[in-house]
C-alpha cells in the first residue's frame, strides 16, 4: 500500500484537507477527490497544457505535480475563475464573444493561461499572447480566435 499523507490547500478560495497517496497527482486529486473536472487530463506528460491551473498565482501543469507538493498552496482552477456572483470573468466573456471555443477541451487551460498573462501584462500584443500560450495545444480553432479573444481583454 502506498504511503498516505494529509495535505491542506485552498482551492478556489475554499480550504480542503485531503488524504492522498504520496504519488497522487494534483490533476487526479482535483478531478476525483474534489470533483473539479473542469481541469482536463489529456497527455499526462506536460505536452499539451490541458491540465493547467494556477498554483500560488502561477500557471502549473497539474498532471506533472504531486498533490503532496502543493501542501499549503492556493490553487485556482477554471471553476474558480468566475466572479463571486457566478458571472463570467473578462477572459471567459471574451472567449464567448470571439467564439474561441469549439470542442472546449483545451478551453480551461487556455482561459487560465489568458488570465495569467493579463495579470502580468494588462495589454499584451499578439505575439506576446502567442508566446504565452505556446504550450497549450488546441486542435479545433487554429488558435487565431483564442489570440483575438485574449487580446480584446487588453487595456
Amino acid at each position, binding site marked *: 500500500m502506498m504511503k498516505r499523507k494529509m495535505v491542506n490547500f485552498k482551492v478556489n478560495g475554499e480550504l480542503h484537507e485531503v488524504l492522498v497517496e504520496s504519488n497522487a497527482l494534483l490533476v487526479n486529486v482535483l478531478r476525483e477527490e474534489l470533483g473539479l473536472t*473542469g481541469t482536463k487530463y489529456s497527455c499526462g506528460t506536460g505536452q499539451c497544457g490541458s491540465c493547467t491551473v494556477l498554483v500560488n498565482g502561477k500557471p502549473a501543469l497539474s498532471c506533472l505535480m504531486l498533490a503532496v507538493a502543493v501542501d499549503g498552496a492556493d490553487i485556482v482552477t477554471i*471553476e474558480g475563475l468566475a466572479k463571486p456572483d457566478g458571472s463570467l470573468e473578462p477572459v471567459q466573456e471574451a472567449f464567448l464573444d470571439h467564439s474561441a471555443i469549439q470542442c472546449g477541451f483545451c478551453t480551461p487551460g487556455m482561459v487560465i493561461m489568458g488570465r495569467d498573462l493579463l495579470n502580468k501584462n494588462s495589454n499584451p500584443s499578439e505575439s506576446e499572447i502567442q508566446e504565452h500560450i505556446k504550450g497549450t495545444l488546441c486542435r479545433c480553432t*487554429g488558435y487565431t480566435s483564442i489570440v483575438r479573444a485574449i487580446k480584446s481583454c487588453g487595456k
Partner: protein
Amino acid sequence: MSDAQKKEKSFQSGHKIIGKPLARHDAWDKVFGKTVYADDYFLPGMLYGKVLRSEYAAANILSIDTSEAEKLPGVKAVMTAKDVPNNETITRFGQTHSVGGFEGLYRILAYKKVRFRGEAVALVAAETEVIAQKALKLIKVDYKPLLGVFNPIEAKKPGAYKVGESESNVICSYKVRKDDVEKGFALSDVIVENTYRVPAQDHAYIEPESGVAWIDDDGVITIRVSTQVIEHFREVAEVLGLPHNRVRVIGTMIGGGFGGKEDITVESYLALLTWKTKRPVKLTYTREESILAHGKRHPYFMKYRTGATNDGKLMALEAELISDAGGYVYLSPWVLLYSTVGATGPYDIPYVKVDSYTVLTNNTFSSAMRGFGVPQVCFAYESQMDELALRLNLSPLEVRKKNYLKKGKAMATGRVLDRYVAFPETAEKALAALGEQSKPKSPAEKIGRGIASGMTSYGRMVFLHDTSRSYVGLDMDGSVTVRCGVQDLGGGQSSSLAQIAAEVLGVPMKDIKVYIADTALTPLAGTTTATRQLYMSGNATLKAAKEIKKNLLNKAADILEVKPESLDLQDKKVVVKEAPDQTIPLTDVIATCASDGIPLYNVAQFNAPFRELIDFKTGQGQVFPDFTFGTHAAEISVDVETGKVKVLKLVACLDVGKAINPLSVEGQLEGGTIQGLGYALMEDVVLKKGVTLTPSLSEYLIPTSLDVVDIDKVMLESGDGLGPFGAKGVGEPSVTSIAPAVVNAVCDALGIRIFDLPLTPEKIVKALKKS
C-alpha cells in the same frame, strides 16, 4: 471586431436568428469548465478498464496465459478473444441500406494472428487504474514474430507477405475511364509527370478516447462515450449477441474527433467488461495508446501525368493512387472512392484514366480523417497545375481559370454539376486577399505565394441512402425542445439546430433546449461525419419546425379570421405580416391548439437524394449529393540556410452556401486551415517496420500558437447549397486545399518542388543542396 461581426453590421436579410454571429449554446458550460466530457463521469463502484496491446506488428499468437493477472487482488475480469461472444465483426456501410462488395472484417480482440502493433489482445477490469495496469503486465502472450509487410507497393505484389487471411492484400481497386486517355496525351503539347507521397496524419484531438459503461435498471447495457457515431450500438449488441435495443449509447460532448472517433473506439471493450463484471466500467486511453490504436489519414503514393495544350487547356489526366490501409480494412474502400472520384479536382478534362488501390500492410490501420481521401489527391493535382503553369509560362491563376468546372459541366465521372460552382470566383478572391507581396527581411529569406483549389463533398455517398430524423416540440410557455441524435464535435452541430428551430418558430435562442446523441431517447440522426449534420439534421429539424408552424398559423388564422399565409411567427407572437401591430401571444395560440388536440410536436425525417451504385468498370455515375468549392492562398517565407518555412499570410475562400452561424463557419475555416497547415509542414506519423516512432505529442508535432497567423476568411454565400436556408457543409472542405497552396508557395519562393509531405526544414535543405 471579427469579420463575422463586421458582416453582422450590414446584415440585411429577413432572418432574425439565422446568419447571426452567436456564441453557441454549449459555449457557456465549456468556458465555466462545467461540460461533463466522457472521462469526467464517475459512478459508484466503478471499475477501470485497460487494454493489452500487441507488441508486434506481425506475429502469430501461440498462447495467452491470463492466470497470474486473474489472481492479482482487485482484478475483476480478464478477457481474450475466446471470451467474446462474436469476436469477428464485419464493417458495414450505411445505417439504412446495405451495400455489398466492400465488407471488411475486423476483430474485437486479436485471434491467432496480430496485424498491426497496438492491436488489442486482451482486456482487464480492476478496482483501480494502477491495479489494471499491473494486471496487463501479468498477462503472458507467446508470440511468434512474422515477416510482415510495411509498404503498400510491396504488399500489392504477388507473393507478398499476407497481412490477413485472404488471398491478396489488395482490399479493392477502382477505375475512372473517360474516353481514351492516350488520345488526350497525343493532343497535348505539354505533359508533366510526377510521383507524390503523403504521410499518415494523426487526428491528435486533445481528448483521448474515453467512455463509461454500466447496466441500467432494465438490464440495458448503457455506454456514455465520446463518439461521432452513436449508432455503433448495433455493432456492440452483435458482439454480445444481444438484440440491438439492449444496448444504449449516449454520446457526450466530444473533445475533438476529426474522423478519429468515427470507427468504434472503446465501446465494445466497455460493453464486454461491464457485461462480465456487472459493474460500471470506465476506459480512457492514454495519449500513447490513442496514437497506437486509432486509424490515421491514409498515406498515399500518387503517380500523376497531366497533359495540356500550349494555350493552357487541360487535355488528359492519368493517375495511379495507392493507399496504405494498414492492418485492417475499416473505412479504406470508401476513403479510396472519395480519392478516385476527386482525383481530377475541380477541372474539366476531356480524357481521363484513374486507377486506384487500397492495400493492407502491417502498419497502424488507416481510416477516416477530415477530408476523407480528398486532401491527398488535392496535393497532387494542384502541384501538377502549378508545374503546368510553369511549363506553359502562365500564372497559376490563369491556367486554372482556363480549366475550372462550371455549372452545367460534367466531372470525369459524368456527374453534371447542377448547382453554383464558385470558380474562378474563390480563386480570384483568395489571391486578391493576399494583397501586396511582403518583402524579405534578410538575404537568406525568400518569399513565395501559392494558391490551390478544391471541391469537397458534403453529405454521404448517395447510394448509401442516407437519412436523418429530428423531433421538435413546443411547450405551453412557448419554450421549444429539440431532440436529435446528432453527436456534437464542437463544430456547433447542436447549436445550429437550436438556431433553425428558433428562426422558424419565432422564439429566442434561450427558449430552445436541445437534447442530442442518445440512441434510446433521441430520434436517430446518423453519423457526425462526412460534413453531413447541418445538411441532414438541419433539414430534418427545419421540416419538423415548419410542420408545427403550419399548425400554429392555421389555428391563429381561424382566431383572426384571416388567411394563414398572411401570418408569421416573431418574438413569441403571431403577427399579421401587413399589419405588424396586430398580434396574438404565441402562448394563447399554443393553449388553443392544445385544447383542440392539434399537435404541437413533430418528428420529421429528411432523406438525402437516393441513387444506385456507380458503374465500377468506368467509375461513371453519381457518388455525392453536392460539393463545397473553395480556394486557399498562402504567402510564406523560407530561410534558405535553415530550410524553415514561416507562414506570413493565409486566406481561405469558400462558398459556404449560407452561414447559419458565421462565427461557427469562421471557426471551421480557421481550424481546418491550420490542421491542413500542419499536414503541409510538420505532421508525420513515422513508422519503422510497423513501430510508431512518434508515439506522443513531443514527437508527433501539431501546430502550436507560434506556428499560425490570423487567417483571412473570405466567405461567399451563394445560397445554392442543399442544406437548410441554402447552406453547404464546411467542416471538411476547410482542410482540403491548404497543403498544396503552401507547397506551391514554397516552390514559388525557391523554384524547387518537393513531392512528399510534410515540408520539413530537412527536406528543404536537402532539396536546395541538390539543386
